[in-house]
Structures are given as structure tokens and as C-alpha cells.
């Protein structure tokens, strides 16, 4: 019953694209906190809107960033992420752009993640930047309390692992074309 609730009706005050909803979001997160606490499944769109808000407000330590790829995307499916390469690794001073796709079953199902910026990292396909779900524990053992932020932070943590932190990298600025 919750799941199919049209988004518009949840916000009687404004009926506009997600970006304009920031004013109404404090209300949403309160509701969600209550809902999550009582064990109720939170609807996909509510979740994603909250994540959108967090992305815009810079929740977290500032080393990852995420947001909608297209602000007019009503389905909140295609997202863009950015990971700032951790210091004292070979990824330092570089910014890695990613595409995150939250399917219809999100957050029950993990999102699809792929790198746009070329990177040499264990678990990322060399040819197209697709992140192997089995290689990232947050994706492999996905829980619906996880979020895009968690995935991005996990990838950043992987960059700091001994086995990854010194891998030779392609020149800066290259992207995957397929």
C-alpha cells in the first residue's frame, strides 16, 4: 500500500521535481525515521529522496559526493557519484566519477555501480568500469539500510587497501567509453 503511493500526494504543498523538494524534506526524514524504527519498509522513492537530500547537504566526511544524474529524473534511478582519491595512495588527488543505478527493487536490491573515470582497482572491470558485486562487501552483503553513500565510501576504503593502494593507474582524465 505504501509502495504505490504517488509521490505528489505525500507533499501536498508542492508538486515539483525533486530538487525543489528540499524545503519539504525535513518532514520526510522525520517520517522515515519513525517508519524505519518501527520496522516498516520504507518506500523506494522516499529513500532515494532522502539520499538526494543527504547528497546535497554533504552528509558524511566530504570525501564522497552523490546526486541525481538528471534533476528531472522522476524515477530517481540514475545517479552520479564522485569519490575523492584517498591521500597516501596512488589515487590521491584524483576524482573518480561513477554512475549508480538504483533499480526498481532498491533498496531491497543493491544498486548497479560502474566507474566512469578509468581506474585500476580490484573488483572493477578493466574494460568498462563495472564494479563486480561480489568484490565489494557492501554490494555482496547488501542490506536495505545501506545507501549510495555507503557504497561509495566502501569503494573508497577499497582504494586504501594494501592490495590496491599502489596499483599503477591510467593517466588522469580518461573515461570508459562503453
Amino acid at each position, binding site marked *: 500500500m505504501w509502495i504505490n503511493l504517488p509521490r505528489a500526494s505525500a507533499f501536498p504543498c508542492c508538486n515539483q521535481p525533486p*530538487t525543489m523538494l*528540499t*524545503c519539504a524534506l525535513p518532514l520526510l526524514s522525520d517520517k522515515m525515521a519513525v517508519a524505519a524504527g518501527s520496522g516498516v519498509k520504507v518506500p523506494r522513492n522516499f529513500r532515494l529522496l532522502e539520499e*538526494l537530500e543527504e*547528497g*546535497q*547537504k*554533504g552528509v558524511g*566526511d*566530504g*570525501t564522497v*559526493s*552523490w*546526486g*541525481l*544524474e538528471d*534533476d528531472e529524473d522522476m524515477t530517481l534511478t540514475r*545517479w*552520479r*557519484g*564522485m569519490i*575523492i582519491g584517498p*591521500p*597516501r*595512495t*596512488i*589515487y*590521491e*588527488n*584524483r*576524482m573518480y*566519477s*561513477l554512475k549508480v543505478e538504483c533499480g526498481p527493487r532498491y533498496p531491497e536490491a543493491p544498486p548497479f555501480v560502474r566507474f566512469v*573515470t578509468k581506474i*585500476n582497482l580490484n573488483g572493477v572491470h578493466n574494460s568498462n568500469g563495472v564494479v563486480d558485486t561480489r568484490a565489494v562487501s557492501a554490494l555482496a552483503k547488501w542490506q536495505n539500510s545501506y545507501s549510495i553513500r555507503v557504497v561509495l565510501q566502501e569503494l573508497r576504503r577499497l582504494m586504501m587497501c594494501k592490495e590496491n593502494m*599502489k596499483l*599503477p*593507474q*591510467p*593517466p*588522469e*582524465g580518461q573515461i570508459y567509453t562503453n
Partner: protein
Amino acid sequence: MAENSGTDPTVDSNVVENAASDGTMIVVTVKTPKDKEEIAISEDSSVAQFKEEISKRFNAKQDQLVLIFAGKILKDGDTLNQHGIKDGLTVHLVIKTAPKTTVGGTSQSSASSSGTPQANSSINPSAVPNASTTPGTGPTPASTQPPNLLSGFGDLSSLSGMGMGSANFMEMQQQMQRQLMSNPEMLSQIMDNPLVQNMMSNPDLMRQMIVTNPQMQQLMERNPEISHMLNNPELMRQTMELARNPAMMQEMMRNQDRALSNLESIPGGYNALRRMYTDIQEPMFSAAREQFGNNPFSALGGNLDSGVQPSRTENREPLPNPWGPPGTSPSESRGTGASTTTTSSAGGTAPSASNPLGINASGLGNGVFGSPGMQSLMQQISENPQLMQNMLSAPYMRSMMQSLAQNPELASQGSNPTAATNPSQQQQQLMQQMLQMFAGGGGGSLTLTPEVRFQQQLDQLSAMGFINREANLQALIATGGDINAAIERLLGSQPS
């Protein structure tokens, strides 16, 4: 919702600055991994204007700033509106420490990557995360500082120009270094000294020394492979092993040279080599060469540009004897007055692929004490107790003193039975002891010139009919006193 409330002091002060742009003011939080600032900016402004504000607040250049919002990089030409940046939202900031082109542009480092498949990175050595900005932003901090490879040794940055007049530790370091570079025998003697070996066996110390040199930092900026090399402990250890054993090092250099010449014969190989040379070696050479360039004492040796000339001009020197006893073959003949050529043979002065520092083999005079420059230096030191003080207080000196104390053999050299009452005399003696110690415990051989050393052999050679004393001497030096080999050399070169 984004109205300028007027009660916000930050906004008030910034209104004047942003007077040019219309629109309501919004306060945007700019967050770096370390820092957070609130910046007021007009809603309609462009990313470039925003960056201007940010560069003021964060004290960084505009082209070093990279802004990220909602997972996207903000390009200068965009507007804040375009990305939906509103009041109260957070934008992430990354300040690039390197002045290379930002993400999206082809960085120069890709051009300078060598033919090897090593990839580029913009990694900065972790030991000097802050200092790395200096070579980045000011490409010649070294213009105020004569470049000095040994600057890691207790770097005293107080500098007062060149010339013998300055009582300055840096000066002495430089001159010592020049001496070092110009005389391979002295180098090998120094290497043999257990004190030095002690120091070299500490990989961290070596790495620190190398890394803190601004020259090296520049090099590492441009050539990430070097920082790779430094970061790899295995490789460091190997290199240090080599450095410790000069014979082995020369062996390896010869092998490398031969391998390189093989490479040349591969089609297209020459180009790769050439590329490698220009990309890797040139910066290193120019770094090393600068020392020679600034060196007013280089004239002392009578051998000048050979450090600069690539070994393409005709080479009259006999090639090193590959089967000769190790450590003797590469010791070059001295640039005596008679020798007209200023070129060097393979493995000699001209920086080759295996000898990036271009260790100049033509001696300035055998040994540390032979050169007038060094002598006056010592004089100066003994006259100036302050300099002595400075030298002693340098950190590496302390560690040297420690190992000195531990090593009874060396300590005995240091202690002088005839204790002088006059403090300046004492210092002088101490200095001499120390310098002698540097040169190694090899007895008095250092102070003898080759002529004296090979006197007996020279006599024999002239008795046999080899009249040309100069050539004899050169041959003897090349073969390290081996008469038979020297004879063969002389016979080989006579028809020419």
C-alpha cells in the same frame, strides 16, 4: 527561502564584494576533507565567480580548486543555478596540490611517461605532503639555494651567496659534494668507510634524505616513476646494496649500457630510448648539472663540459677493460694538461642511462686534500669556530658521532694523543681527523698523487722504452698499477 535576511554578518560583508552580480544571496557551505567554510554568493553567479570567492577564503589558486556537487564536477562555465545549488547546501572542494591540469584535461604527466608500461599517478611522497607544494608553485625555490644533493644532511637553509668568503655550512657541503663527484676513488673510499655504510644501511634515512631535497621533489613531481621507486622498499634496499659496493655498481652499469645498446638495434628502439632519455634523464641531468654549472671551482679540474656533452663526440679514451680487476677499470685518466679531449669514455663523465648523476671521473687532484679549494676551505673552517659549531649541530652529524663512539677503530683515529692547548688548533686537528676519516682508513694513500703511487711502475715502463710519461701514467691509472695491462694498453693505442 533564499532571501538575504540582512542579519547575517557574513552576507553583509560580502554584499559589497558581490555587488556586481544581481540576485539574492545564498550561503553555501564549502567542505574540504579537512575544512569547512560558509561562503555567501549570489544565486545567479557562475562557478568561476564562486571559485574566486573560494580561492580567497581558502588561500588557494583558482585553478587548483575542484568543486563537486551532488556527484558532479562543477565546470567554470556553469552556473550555480544549473546544478541546483541553493542556500544551505554543501559543495565539496578539493584543492589540488599539483598545478597540473584538472580532471578532464590530459595532464602533462602522460606525455612524460616513459616507454615502460608504468602508469602515471599524481602521487606525492607521503613524507613531504606539505613541502610538495613548494616545488609545485615555485618552480625555482632552488634559485635562492644552490642545488645540493646532500642537502638532506642537516639542511641549514641560511645561505649567503657563493664564494669562499662565506662561512657557511651549505657551502662546505657543496664543495665536499663537488669533490665527491669529481673523484670516483674518493667516492669508493667513502663508501667503504663503515661509518657511511652504517648510515646507508638505514633505508628510511636514505629515503628521507633523498626526498627532502627540493631538486628531487621537482623530479618526483614530473616523474612519478621516481617516487614509485622510492616508495618501494625492496628497490631501495637493492639500490643501497649497489651503492655500497661500487664494484658491483659499475658492473651493473656496464650491463645496463650493453643492454641499452642492444635496444638501440631494435627497429624503433632508438626512438624509445631517445624518448626515455628526454623524458626521464634530462630533468635529472639538469638537476645534477646545475651543480656543475654553478660551480666556480669546476675550472680547478681542467675538465669542464664533459659533464654536459653527451658521449657522441669522438672518444679517444681507451674503453674500460671489462676483464680488469673490479673497481679499477672505470677510473678514468686524469684530465692532465696534455690531454686535449674533454670527452669521456663510456661509463665516465657523460651522464649515461646507467649513470644518471654523471659522476665525473676526471679527478680534480687525487683526494680531498689535493685541491686548493678544499685546502682553503679547511683553513676557513678552522678559522671560524662558528662554522664548526654549525657543522657539529647538524642532525646527521650527531648520528655520525654516535656511530663514531660505537666504533672504537674510528674513534681512535679521532683522538689525538697530542692534545693541543689552543682551542683553534684543536679544532683544526679535529677537522683534519674528520676529513681524513671521511676519506677512509686507507692510510696515507689518499694524499699521494698517482705519480707518486706508480713511481715504481713508471720507472719500469720508461726502462722498457715507453717514453711517453703522460701516456704511461694514464695507462697505469686505468689499470690500477698493473704493468702488464698497462703495457698492452699502450701498445694498443700506439699505432693511432
